[in-house]
């Protein structure tokens, strides 16, 4: 429920078609193609969806810090649900780093700080990156991937986003 087919026999799918252009349902319905390995997972969000959700979260965060019964609350640090945990780290400049992880995953705090370092190194120091725009820096992506792999191995195994 809420999951979609991500890959068949190791090759990522493209909408309703497999990597080589066949319709998925047809492919799966044909016994001649068995045995077949199917990877399910949560649907990956598009960039626009991410932006929308992020701005929603930003407002909730602001509301959260105002509503807090404790004075001087810094805002939402963690949101826990049955299926995932959302961790948020806000810097002194107001930038928020949000990580969605498996509830059992540990070490997210240090991951968030590591991401902050990666951001300041590979996004900010890139002279062609404009502040507040989506980050499309190769080095940033590479180093981020590495940091996520390290965190995944260190904590218990779980998907990160």
């Amino acid at each position, binding site marked *: 429920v809420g999951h979609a087919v991500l890959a068949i026999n190791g090759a990522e799918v493209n909408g309703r078609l497999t990597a080589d252009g066949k319709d998925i349902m047809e492919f799966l319905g044909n016994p001649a193609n068995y045995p077949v390995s199917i990877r399910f997972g949560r649907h990956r969000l598009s960039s626009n969806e991410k932006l929308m959700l992020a701005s929603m979260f930003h407002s909730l965060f*602001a509301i959260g*810090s105002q509503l807090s019964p404790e004075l001087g609350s*810094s*805002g939402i640090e963690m949101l826990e649900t049955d299926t995932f945990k959302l961790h948020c780290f*806000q*810097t*002194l*400049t*107001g*930038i928020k780093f949000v990580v969605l992880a498996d509830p059992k995953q540990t070490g997210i705090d240090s991951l968030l*700080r590591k991401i*902050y*370092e990666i*951001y*300041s*190194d590979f996004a*900010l*120091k890139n002279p062609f990156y404009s*502040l507040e725009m989506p980050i499309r820096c190769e080095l940033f992506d590479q180093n981020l991937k590495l940091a996520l792999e390290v965190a995944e191995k260190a904590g218990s195994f779980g998907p990160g986003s």
Partner: protein
Amino acid sequence: SRELFVLTYGALVAQLCKDYEKDEDVNTCLDRMGYGIGIRLIEDFLARSAVKKCRSYSETADMIAQVAFKMYLGVTPSVSCSSAAGNEFSLILDKNPLVDFVEELPAERASLCYCNLLCGVIRGALEMVHLSAEVTFLQDKLKGDAVTEIGIVFLKNTEDKKHKRN
């Protein structure tokens, strides 16, 4: 590599002097460049130093002098508060690595603020943590003063309740 940085800075100032006739224009340009650096450098500073939020202007000035200057330029200016209101501070540098190879300003560039980039950097960095300030050179060894003094005047806070980022 410190030398390369200092030489690069010198080349930058020299080129600006060729590009602009008036000293004020060069100073403005340096300040603007510094600002561009400052707004990005602040994240690097916060990420690496993991400092806590400063609770007062005085703490902020100390942080700039003792942690930031040390981290990026390897020197620690001394801080003094120069107003009763507690919002004006001076950073006194007796060693400034940027001017290592500069003896004195040329005669026709008497009002050039050679290190004005630093003022821009401080101003930009402070702005990103929601503190607006005026940063200028009050004294300059290159102009014959005894020490090099950077003045920071914290202005009324730019953030208001509605647009509070936290």
